[in-house]
């Protein structure tokens, strides 16, 4: 059997476009990422472990993971209901709301950061209602969760919407004909079909939360050990010319996002397999 790199095609331009693609990709993406990998391996385990096991680093990583998980969970619930309503119901200004879902993508993170801080500060529009109960929404964990929820919302909604739109109405009709209540139809017919999409959205929102920096620095207060997120600590280390320390934390973040990326791809594969089985 003859192995060929490329299947025969009459279309021209393969060499030029693929060559340019690979060249540009290597220059912009692969070379810098290789630098990070080589830098981290050349430091050795000892330095890496010393940095990562430092209480301040450990606390910031834990904080980042915990808040990102909580925010992704809020988004999974809230985003699911939003996606459900946008797909299934009609209500005033629905198209406007639908377009607004993308706002966190479009609004620069620094802008959302200062806006959210102003709203949730103890004198702000929403924060003032919590101030009498001594709940500090800003410069606390809550602030980080709020910012991460804002940032992650479109990921859940935009992943779920197509899945909900693709649902086959006939399955629900069949369930209703067989005497299922609406809740049973939801639980046993709709839910199993969309769970992969929901998990994908959750994973994407979680990954985005882990790496988020712009909006959080304004709202979190950046207190070491308390509200200092991992991304901020990278910048702090860089400013102290501790490149090895910054690289170690970056590696932790990078590895987690790759693991998440991998699981998102697996989830999408799983979801397409499932849907193929259904139809």
């Amino acid at each position, binding site marked *: 059997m003859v192995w060929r790199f490329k299947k025969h095609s009459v279309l021209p331009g393969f060499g030029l476009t693929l060559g340019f693609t690979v060249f540009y990709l290597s220059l912009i993406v692969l070379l810098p990422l290789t630098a990070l990998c080589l830098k981290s391996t050349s430091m050795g385990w000892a330095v890496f472990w010393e940095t990562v096991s430092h209480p301040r680093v450990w606390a910031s990583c834990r904080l980042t993971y915990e808040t990102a998980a909580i925010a992704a969970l809020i988004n999974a619930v809230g985003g699911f209901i939003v996606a459900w309503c946008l797909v299934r119901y009609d209500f005033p200004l629905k198209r406007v709301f639908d377009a607004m879902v993308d706002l966190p993508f*479009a609004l620069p993170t620094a802008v959302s950061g200062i806006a959210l801080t102003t709203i949730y500060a103890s004198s702000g529009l929403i924060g003032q209602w919590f101030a009498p109960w001594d709940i500090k929404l800003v410069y606390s964990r809550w602030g980080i969760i709020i910012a991460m929820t804002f940032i992650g919302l479109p990921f859940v909604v935009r992943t779920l919407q197509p899945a909900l739109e693709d649902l086959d109405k006939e399955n629900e009709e069949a369930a209703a004909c067989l005497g299922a209540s609406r809740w049973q139809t939801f639980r046993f017919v709709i839910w199993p079909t969309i769970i992969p999409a929901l998990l994908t959205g959750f994973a994407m929102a979680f990954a985005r939360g882990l790496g988020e920096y712009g909006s959080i620095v304004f709202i979190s207060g950046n207190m070491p050990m308390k509200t200092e997120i991992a991304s901020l600590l990278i910048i702090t280390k860089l400013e102290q010319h501790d490149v090895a320390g910054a690289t170690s934390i970056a590696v932790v973040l990078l590895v987690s996002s790759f693991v998440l*990326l991998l699981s998102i791809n697996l989830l999408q594969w799983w979801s397409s397999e499932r849907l193929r089985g259904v139809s």
Partner: protein
Amino acid sequence: MGFSNQRGSGGRIASPLLEPRWVRWSLTAFSCSFLVLFLVVPLAVVFAEALRKGVGAYWAGITDPTAWSAIKLTLLVVAISVPLNLVFGLAASWAIAKFEFWGKSLLITLIDLPFAVSPVVSGLIFVLLFGLHGWFGAWLDSWGLQVIFAVPGVVLATIFVTFPFVAREVIPLMQEQGTEQEQAALTLGANGWQTFWFVTLPNVRWAVWYGVILCNARAMGEFGAVSVVSGHIRGKTNTIPLHVEILYNEYNFVAAFAVASLLALLALVTLVAKALVERRIHLSSTSLEPTTVES
């Protein structure tokens, strides 16, 4: 959407395909308040805070020379990064969508890679390459060139974070459209460029626009990556988002929100353009293949 129409007007019998009215109402109420709370209010606050002390203060914030130089730098960065990523996106989608070759899915994964890298890490990798102690740092220094804490670093970091946008919007659409039309064009005597320019590009132009819009929005608004490499030199390496940060940290809130309102306007324009382009994509994809729609 189709489900809500199933109920007859004023019908008292609950449709078996629709949730009870109170469930629908409370879910809709929840969604609307969730979206208002998290999206509408922050956007409105930007403009309200910017205009808090009147139009004069707002205008002063925007027309300040340092704000102006930040705007100019941002436009420069966009003018370099968006066209480069556009050309890359078109080349990559041609190679990936029109040909079958070994390692294609790996290539697609690699193109998506910058999305998985957090903004601060994206900045850091360029410091590792071009920083004073980086791979090319000493070499650049001997030539008197500076990348980090200078404009080239800002441009590079922006190119990195906006890298996948065009490619990722165009590849799926081009793949969907196959190669028949291009083969027909070639058979009729068109050359490669003509085929691309007159056959392929018109078919995917809305997806290209869509990618460019997203790429542009991200390029103008990128904060984390740029923040690492820029060095925050006022009037020199500050982009609009970095300028907002400095003003805000100096408690100059009106000016900070005034400059931020420019970015918020950009976001609104992006959303409207996105909605329009999405509709065009939807229209063109339904008109393109009317025969494949089943039941």
